């Protein structure tokens, strides 16, 4: 069995959930609820397009640009980057995902895509499946790993093996997320064309 070095560098405390960002999250969620309650077309389109664009761009950028750069950096630099980057992602991603899906569902209802007789209904069901796959990956593997890494990095002496094992989940799921995001782009452009 391997071991953790007792003389490892001491970690500095940091916020796992950036509290300063919570009012912004609340504001966005209230905005989504108001857009749904008023059936405001522009508000729904704004939430869906802005949220969806950010979600896809962040997923692809983090997975295929930031990820490989991070893996080539020395471990202490990786740790420092993760301590600053991951707490923000903990707020940003669930917020834009909720914003995108809630507004998207209402738009699909408004446009009649939810009706089984609509010729584009199949595309909506395929998009549900894509979101389902991403939800399982994000909620069962990535989200918990993200939080666990942050708790580990906050310890006086983080275990590098724990951090490495948890970070492997990001590497393994990058391909799945990338394929699903590209599928989303195809489905969404097919729906509106």
């Amino acid at each position: 069995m391997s071991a953790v070095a007792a003389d490892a560098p001491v970690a500095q405390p940091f916020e796992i959930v950036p509290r300063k960002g919570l009012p912004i999250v609340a504001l966005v969620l209230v905005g989504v609820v108001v857009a749904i309650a008023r059936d405001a077309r522009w508000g729904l389109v704004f939430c869906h397009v802005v949220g969806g664009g950010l979600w896809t761009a962040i997923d692809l950028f983090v997975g295929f640009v930031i990820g490989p750069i991070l893996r080539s950096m020395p471990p202490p630099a990786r740790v420092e980057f993760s301590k600053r980057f991951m707490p923000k992602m903990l707020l940003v991603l669930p917020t834009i995902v909720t914003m995108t899906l809630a507004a998207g569902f209402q738009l699909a209802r408004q446009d009649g895509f939810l009706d089984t007789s609509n010729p584009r209904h199949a595309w909506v069901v395929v998009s549900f499946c894509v979101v389902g796959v991403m939800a399982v990956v994000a909620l069962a593997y990535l989200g918990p790993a993200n939080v666990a890494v942050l708790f580990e990095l906050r310890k006086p002496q983080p275990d590098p093996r724990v951090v490495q094992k948890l970070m492997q989940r990001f590497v393994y799921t990058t391909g799945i997320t990338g394929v699903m995001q590209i599928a989303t782009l195809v489905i969404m452009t097919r729906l509106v064309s």
Partner: protein
Amino acid sequence: MTESLVDRKLPPVTEIGAAAMVAVAVGVIFNAAYLPKHAPTAVAVAILIVAAALETTNLFLVSRIQDFAWARFKQVAGWFLVAYAVIAGMIEYAFIYDDTRGTQLVILTLMLVLFMLNVPVLAAFTVARYERV
């Protein structure tokens, strides 16, 4: 020198939780694909029972773990529950707003409850398994 918690053998809570999540996702997609009409109730209920059974198994397995960081587990699960109650509440609001009624609303609500309970368990377990007691 202290032993790494990576090598600790624990029940497959993440895998079972992911399977429950798949069942919930399939159930919600199955029901949502039929909106605004009603999906066949028997199939939807069967999926619901599978998801509930998997989550119950998970709770049982977690409850039997010895020398576990329960304080951390409860802390993380509690905050995740608050966050996902808000998200599930928003989804439920959308279902009601869109005139989803009767058996379909009951099934979708129960699936949302399972979703809301599953995510905190998965997150809390992943954090607590690497905490020393």
